[in-house]
């Protein structure tokens, strides 16, 4: 102990900080900067399972931009991310609003509402695959019992329904996160504001529109950005639900990259597709980082 004390006295506080964060820096360099560098370099190479490996400029990019499948994947990913974000937003907001109104037993109810977050996305895909299954699932049966439909919905053979099914399964896992995020925003609003509004004769709609919404706007917005960013790149649910089908209706960018790696075994085009995905998400993210740092 005394030895380490002497040693510590020698280095200044700022140097001590550098020493402390050194392992983190090492990990960042080894696991982030190096692979990202490799990604950019490989995207300009002719790199398949057959030699030679050589520089071919932008030809990989040209290939994927001329690939019809890439555009299909991009379109599907956009629809998918937008759909999941929408469902997550609505679900998260509704549950957060209700939770904020409840006082007795709120801890227990909060735990319950968080449960889906703990379910792996792949498993969520399986669960919803069973629920939506037209032959054995309870979803069609439930709607038929309510008299809304006359025969089971063919969720996985209809392109649009398959997409909606995947969106629901994905959003289900993400709603709790959005919910706690919104709730954190709701709880930062001082109650005096509501009391004052009440005295002025405002009802709950007025309060929502003029107090709740403006004050939680930033929190909700960040939550939405995160959700859309994360949905833009997942394939877990789709992998266990539809595997990109039917007729590539749920074929997303992640699948496109995996196809480059597995089916075509072309590291060059795979990297190029990776770079494009990275740049697309960076444009979302720049906005997000800007919002975080604006606060500080």
């Amino acid at each position, binding site marked *: 102990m005394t030895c*380490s*004390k002497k040693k*510590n006295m020698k280095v200044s*506080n*700022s140097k001590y*900080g550098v020493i*402390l*964060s050194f392992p*983190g*820096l090492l*990990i960042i360099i080894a*696991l*982030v900067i190096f*692979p*990202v560098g490799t990604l950019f370099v*490989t995207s300009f190479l002719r790199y398949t399972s057959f030699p030679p490996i050589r520089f071919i400029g932008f030809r990989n990019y040209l290939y994927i931009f001329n690939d019809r499948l890439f555009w299909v994947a991009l379109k599907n990913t956009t629809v998918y991310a937008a759909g999941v974000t929408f469902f997550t937003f609505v679900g998260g907001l*509704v*549950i957060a609003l209700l*939770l904020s109104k409840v*006082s007795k037993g709120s*801890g227990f109810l*909060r*735990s319950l509402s*968080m*449960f*889906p*977050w*703990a*379910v*792996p*996305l*792949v*498993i969520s895909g399986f*669960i919803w695959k*069973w629920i939506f299954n037209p032959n*054995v699932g309870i979803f069609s*049966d439930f709607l038929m019992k309510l008299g809304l439909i006359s025969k089971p919905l063919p969720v996985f053979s209809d392109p649009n329904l398959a997409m909606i099914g995947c969106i629901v399964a994905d959003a289900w896992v993400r709603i709790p996160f959005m919910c706690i*995020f919104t709730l*954190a925003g709701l709880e930062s609003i001082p109650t005096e504001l509501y009391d004052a509004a009440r005295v002025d004769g405002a*009802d*709950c709609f007025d309060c929502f529109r003029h107090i709740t919404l403006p004050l939680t706007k930033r929190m909700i917005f960040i939550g939405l950005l*995160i*959700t859309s*960013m994360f*949905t*833009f790149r*997942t394939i877990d649910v789709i*992998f*266990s639900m539809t595997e990109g089908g039917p007729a590539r209706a749920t074929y997303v960018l992640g699948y496109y*990259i995996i196809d480059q*790696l597995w089916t075509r075994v072309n*590291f060059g085009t*795979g990297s190029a597709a*990776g770079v494009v*995905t*990275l740049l697309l998400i960076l444009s979302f*993210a720049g906005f*997000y*980082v800007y919002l*975080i740092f604006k606060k500080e």
Partner: protein
Amino acid sequence: MSTLFSRRNKKLKLKIRSIRKVIAFVLERPITSYILLIVVLFFMLSPIIFTAFTSFKTRAETFQWPPTYFPHKPTLQAYEEVIFRSPLPRHLLNSLIISLGTTGIVMLGGLFTAYGLSQYQYKGSGVVLLLFISTRIIPPISLLVPFYIIMSWFGLINTYTCLIILNTFLCYPLAVWMLKGFFDVFPKDLIDSAIVDGCSRTGAFLKIVVPVSAIGIAAVAIITFLWTWNEFLYAMIFTNTRNVQPVTVGAHYFVGDELVQWDSIAATAMFTAVPGLIFFSIAQKAIVKGLTAGAVKG
């Protein structure tokens, strides 16, 4: 004509206002919130509930139409099958090894990094912090190919080490970000007085800061464990044998080309979701705090 229209319009407005009053009155009762919340939560949790029920059905019952909501003759057949006649226990063990390994490395490195970034700022520590956040933004899927190339170089494809490294890449920046959130609000006087009393800086950190913020640290550890446990993409690409594949990949064992064994899938789903559900029941508050402090994961 126009007066008739405006009168009608006025009537309509009055009607809307009175309807709005009624709805507002109903919505403002506390009991309404409870009822609505219970209905919404029922629908949110019904996938888990009915999966749990399905795991107790016989296989014949899972193929019935119309489907049953509750098992008629509850059995443990599916669990027996999953535990004794399938590779699932092996996958669960793999998941456990990978998750514990990742959590250990991430926490060990993350604690010091976060503390350094939070308490001992230096020239350029802001840039380092920005680097950490931007790491989270890189989509894991776009790094599939470079990681594949790098892992093949080192001959690490299909090993625990490979998955632990990749999961460290996924979790480390966020763990640092969340831990920094906890250390930022730590009372500085406490550290200073410990140092005045003759404690070294490292000693103050290990003896004072870590024990006091133990709950927050535990929350971050739990979150790291769960993310690693739930991770699928890298596990699927970088492993190909049962000896290494974690449970998220192994669950596909019950999905055949033509037949899906729904009862076994349901039992697998229960096993896979259990760690998360247990952690949540115990440490919900701490986890929520950690997530909102980090606020970077969807």
